């Protein structure tokens, strides 16, 4: 046994990054599912593992690791199996650049849209007092703000517009990058692809006016190529929610542009 315990939610966004990296490496791990919508990540049992209450976290023997992208680099280095970082130092720089760009610029915009249409409405109808208490238990002030905005629908029109602008810019940038190279940032399947798939797997469903086989053929080629990998299939099969099952859109051989309204 590898001695790895992964604390994660769905194969989606940050949780899915170490899940897929471990599966690509062929590292068996003990899965500890946390229900994000049930606020499992802010309960004392999990805060004992990761006091910041962010998902995912990984235990390897006595070590506890957080920060999904950094965990992926650790997984790639600490275990045998196919290398998920190229040998060329400049490719490695480019891959890290893209992961940071996605983690810190593009994903938060996708996430704001996702939280406002999916996460907020999913928990909003619960008992107001329980929700208030749940928010107060969140350790990081930034995350407290995020949850409050999602639960009470406090995203401003301006914020949402800016997120939508960034999503459009980011999709163009991904399409350009994938028109130059087979994979994101290099000519080899890497952590940038693992990271990017977690962000973009449902893109033609969530952003039909910006992504399709007509509009972004390289993104679609790339998403299908990642989805065709057995570790990706196995990883997404661990998903429990309808959100994650949207990945099946990639089984369609052609996704045309949505007709203008």
């Amino acid at each position, binding site marked *: 046994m590898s001695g790895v315990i992964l604390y994660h939610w769905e194969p989606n966004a940050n949780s899915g990054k170490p899940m897929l990296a471990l599966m690509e490496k062929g590292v068996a791990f003990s899965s500890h599912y946390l229900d994000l919508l049930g606020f499992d990540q802010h309960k004392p049992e999990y805060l004992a593992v990761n006091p910041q209450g962010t998902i995912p976290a990984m235990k390897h023997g006595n070590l506890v690791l957080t*920060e999904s992208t950094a965990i992926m*680099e650790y997984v790639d280095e600490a275990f045998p199996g196919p290398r998920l970082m190229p040998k060329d*130092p400049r490719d*490695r*720089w480019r891959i890290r*650049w893209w992961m940071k760009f996605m983690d*810190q610029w593009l994903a938060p915009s996708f996430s704001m849209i996702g939280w406002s249409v999916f996460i907020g409405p999913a928990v909003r109808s619960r008992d107001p007092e329980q929700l208030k208490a749940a928010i107060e238990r969140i350790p990081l002030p930034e995350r407290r703000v995020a949850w409050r905005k999602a639960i009470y629908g406090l995203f401003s029109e301006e*914020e949402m517009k*800016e997120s939508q602008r960034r999503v459009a810019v980011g999709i163009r*940038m991904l399409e350009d990058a994938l028109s130059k190279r087979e994979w994101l940032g290099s000519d080899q399947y890497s952590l940038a692809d693992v990271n990017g798939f977690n962000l973009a797997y449902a893109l033609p469903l969530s952003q039909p006016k910006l992504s399709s086989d007509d509009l972004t053929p390289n993104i679609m080629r790339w998403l299908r190529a990642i989805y065709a990998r057995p570790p990706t299939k196995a990883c997404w099969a661990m998903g429990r929610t309808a959100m994650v099952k949207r990945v099946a859109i990639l089984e369609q051989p052609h996704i045309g542009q949505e007709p203008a309204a």
Partner: protein
Amino acid sequence: MSMTLYHGEPNGPSFTVLAALFEKSLKAELIRIDLAAGQRHSLPCAQQAEVAMSVEGEGPVLVVDDEGMADSVFVACYLDDIGHGPALRPADAYGRWETMTWCRQLIERAAPAAAYLGCKAHPPRADAAMLARIGSVDLRNRWEEMSAGVFAPEKLADSAAKITQAVEKIEARIDGRDWLMGPFTIADLESYAWLAGMVRVVPAAFAGKPRTAAWMERVKSRPAIVRVLALASLPDPAASWAPGPEINRWG
């Protein structure tokens, strides 16, 4: 392979990359640009995605085979990979995870705070023609706000708190060791890069922090760092600031 490094004053991200270059005994053509005047946006590679859309904001650009490389921590990792002498990241995977995680949290919290406070204390000054060249809309917005002297009081207060937290983290970490990760690493470079200029801007954050003060002196006295700081064209390079990474938009 020839390299050209366009860099600003040895402060912030320019400090990190210059220091990594010298620590690793590498040679590059060094070309000074005024980041605080937006000169990065007139470089030949300015519109390459990895330069124009760098999350770091105004930072140095290393050009290798016509490819502009931005984001100081990752450029430093590149220089660490190709250079000579002791590694700038720990030898074991866990130590490297710690280094990257340290840098990530610093980049996300302390760096935007330092750039915001630094620009308030030492305003950047790009003309309209330069601003028009900026490829990233949100970076251009930060420039426009800062040029107009618009600084939100709550962001200034939050930024000062973030600097205080970063110094507290260093003070706790340096207990019984010389460097943040044990061996000298990119985490020392990046932490010094963003915090050295804060000593005068947020003095309260550094008050009663003897281990942090001693660590800063150790960084400064390394032979490679002495050479980096000697490149300054201003009496106080730590007073040179340009719009940096954006303050977290939400959660």
